[in-house]
């Protein structure tokens, strides 16, 4: 079975390198990018189980990135991981469809729990989409 793919989006490269290595040890396939634009590009090319997204980045910030990622693919499961975890930012991110909002620094166990949650939610959405496709086919055939 293919490994679950995770995308890390953060401009602190030392951080993404270390976190990626720890996630790989735990059986995940991890890609890392350092900007919102690169995240949009990466998400178009691969099917990620979850995206872990920082808010404070050069150029396009995390909130704008979240918005555009969800516009392009509303099924994407995005976990916001930030050092600027204010209630206002948390509410804004959740309203834009983030799965959860975590404050840096965070325990790896907590991230792994959120990834499991993302995988479960993605499976549910895929089942729902599949069921909708089957229903449409049956409807077209008049069955």
């Amino acid at each position, binding site marked *: 079975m293919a490994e679950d793919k995770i995308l890390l989006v953060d401009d602190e490269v030392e951080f993404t390198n*270390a976190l990626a290595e720890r996630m790989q040890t735990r059986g995940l396939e991890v890609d890392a990018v350092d900007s919102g634009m690169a995240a949009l590009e990466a998400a178009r090319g691969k099917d990620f189980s979850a995206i872990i997204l920082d808010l404070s980045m050069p150029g396009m910030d995390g909130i704008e990135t979240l918005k555009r990622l969800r516009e392009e693919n509303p099924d994407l499961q995005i976990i916001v991981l930030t050092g600027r975890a204010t209630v206002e930012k948390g509410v804004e991110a959740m309203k834009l469809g983030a799965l959860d909002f975590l404050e840096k620094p965070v325990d790896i166990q907590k991230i792994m729990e959120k990834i499991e949650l993302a995988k479960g939610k993605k499976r549910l959405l895929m089942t729902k989409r599949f069921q909708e496709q089957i229903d449409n086919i049956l409807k077209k055939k008049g069955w």
Partner: protein
Amino acid sequence: MDGTSDRFWQEKNLAFFGAVSASLSHEINNVFTIINELAGLLDDHMLRLDQDLPIDPKKLKEISEKIAKQVRRGEALVKLLNRFAHSADHWIAEVGLREMLERIVTISQRFAMLNKAGIQTQFPGDELLLRTSPFLLQQAVFHCIRMELAAADTKRMITVGMERSAGGGALILVESADPVRRTEERDAELAFIARCMEELGGTLERLPGEETIDCVRLGLPPAPES
């Protein structure tokens, strides 16, 4: 100063102190976050020992070096925050202009980075000593830089320089490689910087024309004879 003016300065001073403290504490938190992951990575490697799996000493050395690098980065940030906080100790003090400008440029680098811009310094000659308000002068320079950054397209370079003026005072120059278009917001920023300079007994000059701002020159009077 009347009550309105007091309130104006209180708000401006607090906003400046808040913006700088928030930025530096965010950077310090980034350092802790990296150290947290690197320490976790060390733990992961040590767990291999419990499972009788080999560990690579080179890898451990590499991680410990990265931790040491982040500790040094954190120390520098704490020192910067501490010096900035102490600049509010005395409203008027003897100021080493080069040192002060280097501090405010370092503080502004994160704002520049978020705008995909850069800041360079040009400080030929010796240190210039002035008797002025370090907190207010930093605020004026910070606003000059932020005004240029707010207009920054990607990869814009801002230069901060200083030189001795003819009258024995000092000139601080904040210059953008490309002309900055005037807007209502930037004009308001300039008006505030002018007000800071007025409080400092100095001058503000905007170059060159009606539509653009290429360079802001802050003129400071010489230190009075002791």
